């Protein structure tokens, strides 16, 4: 099998890589590009730990081929903070202890950021349904949902 050459943008950086035709975007990110912030919890799109954005839309990177990234803008957890300035969601997750083990946190943050871009004033129910594809086994989701809604409120106030 010959490898495929792919040109894409990852967190705003022009990136090129070679990948196998059957290689997932998640494997490319983790094994070829050293971006191990996206996690593999299931490999079947059920847990959301590998969530990235593709042109702003949340996607399970374990369900997308690396070759499909050609020409698209990929966003991962590594691109969420701007330099040393954390995204307000990241700050809020720390302040409100919205993580325990932290394995689901990157995927949840990526998905939550997309939620707030899409809907700056989500209700609790909207937040819960938006994040229903991101499993967390430690927290029972309570502090996660609160942190996302509190961030939304802060961001609305600030804007």
């Amino acid at each position: 099998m010959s490898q495929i050459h792919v040109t894409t943008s990852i967190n705003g950086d022009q990136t090129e890589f070679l990948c196998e035709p059957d290689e997932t975007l998640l494997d490319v990110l983790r094994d070829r590009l050293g971006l191990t912030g996206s996690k593999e919890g299931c490999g079947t799109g059920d847990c959301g730990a590998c969530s990235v954005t593709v042109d702003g839309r949340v996607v399970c990177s374990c369900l997308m081929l690396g070759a499909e990234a050609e020409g698209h803008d990929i966003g991962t957890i590594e691109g969420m903070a701007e330099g040393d300035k954390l995204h307000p969601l990241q700050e809020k997750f720390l302040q409100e202890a919205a993580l325990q083990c932290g394995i689901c946190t990157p995927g949840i943050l990526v998905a939550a950021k997309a939620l707030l871009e899409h809907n700056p004033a989500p209700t609790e129910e909207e937040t819960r349904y938006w994040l229903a594809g991101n499993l967390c086994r430690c927290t029972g989701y309570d502090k996660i949902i609160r942190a996302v809604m509190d961030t939304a409120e802060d961001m609305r106030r600030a804007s």
Partner: protein
Amino acid sequence: MALDDRSKTRDFKVIGTRPVRPDGIDKVTGRAKFGADATAPGMLTGRVLRSPHPHARIRRIDASKAEALPGVKAVVTRADFGEVPEDVFDILDNCMAGEKALYDGHAVAAVAASSPAVAKRAAKLIEVEYEPLPHVTDVDEAMKPEAPALHEGRTEETVPEGMSPNVISRVQFGHGDIEAGLAQADRVVERTYRTAATHQGYIEPHACLASMGPDGQADLWCCTQGHYLVRNTCAAILGMEQGQLRVTASEIGGGFGGKTTVFLEPVALALSRKAGRPVKMVMSRSEVLRASGPTASSSVDVRIGMTKDGRITAGFAELRYQGGAYPGSPVDMGSMSAFAPYDLENVRTVGWDIVTNRPKQAAYRAPGAPMAAFAVESAIDELAKGFGLDPLEVRLKNGADEGTKASYGPTYPAIGLMATLEAAKSHPHWSAPLGKGQGRGVACGFWFNFGGDTCVSLNITPDGTVTVSEGNPDIGGSRASMTMMAAEELGIPYDQVRTIIADTGSLGQNEVTDGSRVTFAVGLATIEAARNAKREMCRRAAMVWGIDEEAVVWEDGAARPSGPNAGEHPPMTLAEIAAIASNTGGPIAGHYEVNAEGAGVSFATHMVDVEVDRDTGATKILRYTVFQDAGKAVHPSYVEGQFQGGAVQGIGWALNEEYIYGDDGVLQNPGFLDYRVPVASDLPMIDTVILEIPNPGHPYGVRGVGETSIVPPLAAIANAVSEAAGVRMTDLPMSPPRILAAIENG
């Protein structure tokens, strides 16, 4: 270590606050390195070949075709492991099958290759000749004398003769006279309750990176709840000396007891030894579900008698737990904890440990206790409601308190059960109105909490900041707790202390992160290590001042002269003492090594409202409140987090989660789509009430909090669903089809 007298009234400066955890930034930016995030130069990929049969004799394994595939560097089977000590035999046999494959997914061979793709192809080329054998996966079926036997000669002397060899052991606890007690009752409930096997469901699959050289030295990186245990177990399995194997714990993506043993690690080491290269292994989700530890499934008979004014006259439970293909189900813990919340004159439990053709169970949060509490708390609820009594009042009437002889033997010191019940009774949740089709349930739960071997090393750096090294993987924020306890004890700000998890070469033996022991035991060792450092710093200050060290005390982060003969000296801060450490004798550190004792038992009461849809059988959790005794909440946010997480795992166990085996003995739902853990949209907020009844065995009064929270939910939810559906639910999970069937059969 006793509770400090002054802790009862003490004004803590750091304990009880909610600082940001030290590993926080790494975890919100994707920088944290978990098990699968490590690499090594020249690294190979390891892959396991697993049995498709639930029970089969392994006649022959031929790896020649796999070994001939370009890129394959090593294949190992059981033949690559020598004789091992008896206490690790089952662990090895579970990691790599010997004569028989004992469950669907049991490892039979493994390969290391230059890429994941080659490893995958090579595993398929390994030829295994199986002789399939009859199998059994149900606990009650496995006890029948005619059931297929997994092992011969494993039965303990505690089991009466004539039973199936699948019955491994029997335990009994209790006191008093059950029949006499039941005779005093106005009503006796006698029922059988069943729970399905559930998986811990940590989101991070097992992963490790092993590197072993021809000199016999090895390094291992893995996600585990106890890297010292991994070291000791792997060394025994591979015939190594413990000192030659250094294990580093990665960040751990959840464990809940499931990472208190080894699965891949000995195999990766064996592959690395054979290939002469580092080997990385990562399980897929289906491997996690098929071949790493779920908890036991259970079948429990209960008989409880009560007078019409709500006094329990006798409690009896016979518990049957299957723990998969090897001895060691947590039925003993279930038998000890079943009636632990109650002060009973007549109580007895009998537990049976059974083997079946399922994966070897691993500990799961308060192992064994939730199933036992489900049975007992359901029966108590049924009795209370049958007499028209308030279920909280009935529990208050029978609840254990200081001085109660526990159902498992000892007499309780100060405990918090009554406080949780009183808090529940006065909480607005208890008096809130319920709608049509809704029900409210309550239940109590108990867990022992542990101590055990613990080491902490606390170092004062030259600039006066402090590093703490401890040996217990941080699974839910414990580095924050240790940092807080060190800062509190030293009288310095939280941000001047940094806590790390040291590798096995850096500290002495440490027990696993289990039994809700870490905040208690490692906290205790951290406090004592800080006290040792303070004593040394006082001694240094005394040298400088030219006075007796007895005349120096430590207060607010500084040494101060004290007493009639101390003289007038300005305080010397920690930083000032650190700066002149070289001039006063050398670097300053405090360390503490202990087999920690005095862990305080913990109790919780849970309250839940549900709505049952009578057309679909679906249950919605409307409201949930946890009341639990924490002893002393060091970081209240993470205490709440433990309460909430345990409750939601319990919700999954009660309503959805279930290992489903077909008649073929193969696991039918090895993925998160069909093994459905609770998702955000299934749940309401989980309210928490932290009670603080100090543990007499810890300087600050800390009790473990991690496990108790999964004990009450199964029964609390079953009691609520039973009320809402108008029919008593006795089998978990209460999935929609089960609820519909129960409603139909009335």
